[in-house]
């Protein structure tokens, strides 16, 4: 078995008296999609923010490709190849796709002391990368606001992949999307995984997780309930683990179906 791209061991995170994470272990390997499931308030956000350098863990160790590491800022995490796509903060809708794609890393041309953005190259690369993710842009100058939610997620994913992400953290990429857009994003996750990138897919939707996940970890009230491989666990069991079972089972009975 290969060394995991990123390995989190017994991570704890305390905010004052509140224990947000109480010893979470998690890893992701090359070319796999590891789903992190959990209900609202389970600690998913805190956990990914720890992984992406926003928070520092109170206890526990992090390893990237086998070497222990501590991130001081999101920038550090990015440089270590960990890219995070936040659900609502991924894109700036008023700006063009190209400007969003290259934000913070604009390609430049220069003449003497003058430097300016090489828009020709920027546009070409943006179009190509988007096409590789299965989206044909009408024009790269169109504002991101004109794209659908799924397409916006895809721009953010394409950007992360292009800039050499080894691990891609997706924070609830499908939770605000319709059926068709969801399947597009799931297809994108599959594409990304096949290029050898480790994908961490955060969601509270079991069906979305089952569709692409290779392994599943459930987070509940700041703790993990172990990791299951694909085929070892049924959607119902995952659902139970996430919500603590009993009440949901009763509700399912009265509604007559899986929630």
């Amino acid at each position, binding site marked *: 078995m290969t060394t995991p791209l990123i390995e989190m061991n017994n991570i704890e995170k305390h905010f004052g008296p509140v224990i947000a994470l109480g010893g979470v272990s998690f890893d992701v390997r090359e070319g796999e999609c590891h789903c992190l499931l959990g209900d609202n308030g389970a600690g998913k956000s805190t956990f990914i923010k720890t992984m992406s350098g926003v928070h520092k863990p109170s206890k526990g160790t992090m390893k990237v490709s086998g070497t222990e590491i501590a991130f001081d800022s*999101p920038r550090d995490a*990015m440089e270590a190849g960990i890219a995070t796509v936040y659900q609502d903060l991924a894109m700036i809708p008023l700006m063009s796709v190209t400007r969003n794609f290259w934000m*913070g890393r604009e390609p430049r041309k220069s003449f003497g002391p003058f430097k300016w953005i090489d828009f020709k190259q920027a546009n070409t690369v943006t179009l190509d990368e988007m096409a590789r993710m299965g989206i044909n842009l009408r024009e790269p100058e169109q504002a991101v606001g004109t794209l659908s939610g799924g397409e916006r997620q895809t721009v953010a994913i394409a950007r992360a992949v292009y800039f050499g992400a080894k691990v891609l953290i997706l924070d609830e990429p499908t939770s605000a999307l319709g059926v068709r857009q969801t399947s597009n994003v799931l297809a994108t996750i599959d594409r990304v995984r096949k290029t050898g990138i480790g994908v961490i897919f955060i969601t509270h939707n079991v069906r979305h997780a089952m569709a692409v996940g290779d392994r599943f970890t459930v987070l509940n009230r700041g703790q993990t309930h172990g990791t299951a491989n694909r085929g070892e666990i049924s959607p119902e069991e995952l659902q139970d683990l996430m919500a603590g079972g009993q009440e949901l089972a009763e509700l399912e009975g009265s509604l007559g179906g899986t929630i």
Partner: protein
Amino acid sequence: MLPPDKIYLLNIKSDVMTDERLKQVSTLRRAMIRPELGAICGTILVFVFFFMIAGDSGMFSPEGIQNWGVVSAQFAIIAVGACLLMIAGEFDLSVGSMIGFAGVVIAILSVHMGWPVWLSIIAAFVVCVALGALNGFLVIKTGLPSFIVTLAFLYILRGLTIWLSVMTTRQTIIGGVKEAAIGDPLAFLFGGVIFKDLFQWFADMGWIDAFTRGSRIGQPVVEGVPMLVVWALALVIFGHWLLTKTRFGNWIFASGGDAQAARYVGVPVNRVKILMFMFTAFCATVFATCQVMEFGSAAADRGLLKEFEAIICVVIGGALLTGGYGSVIGAALGALIFGVVQQGLFFAGAESSLFRVFLGTILILAVIMNTYIRRMITGER
């Protein structure tokens, strides 16, 4: 005819998620739909209007053009700063007070303290840009809206200006700068005109009016292009280039569009915002210095309401009040509209108080139009 496998490939390509519900957009429409469109229409409208009602009043003679050109240039200088700052997501309400302050600093240092004018100008720039940085620093560090922080500075600076002026010279108007500035190596950059020879030649050729009697007989009535106009053009070109073509420009858009998202991808949002506050202060100081050199004096009440006039120009120019969207060219056109309307009503012999009515009307119309255009471009709903 293409071989069958080629056709297959073409089909695959067109199969990639193109949204059939998106209408094809014509090139004309694409060229038309831009942030400046409202301002362009406004400019055309204003010019047509004044051609009709004041076309024979001398408004479009060289002197007339110089008249409204200078006024527009004044607006443009502060509008460029306000525009970039607004796109970066912040306001500066202290611009007007900064203009008064910078002017009084120059006058006190050069006339009262006897410093050389060039040193006084540099000192004013240093002090004002530092104050701009302080504005920005306070906004960033406290997290308060820039509206409040700079509103405080609107009062602080105005009060300081009057106090400084009265304390040092016992009056609120300080004259004598023109005399002090004669032969100064820096002052000519802010006062006076360029292309004097060219305009003299125009006059000699009889293309523009020259004085026909008096001590300046034979000299052109319009001596040249005022430095104020040169500054305005330079700042507009610089601002437009910076905003649309450079990496820093992209960061300005990003900081105003969504500061948090920008931070996540490594844009130094705080630095961008503080630099934009400094640039706004720089523009205000350019305005003040030009004014002091032109009048030969500084007054503590200069620059009243300029902050709002700058913001109006920027908004007419298509910028979004909440940041992240706008155009320097639009703001410059907004300044042109402002100047032409203000001076045009005078040429047309209209009651000058109507200026504000007219301006308010243009403001509303331009903003309504801009809102629609912006929705078309950005897909806001």
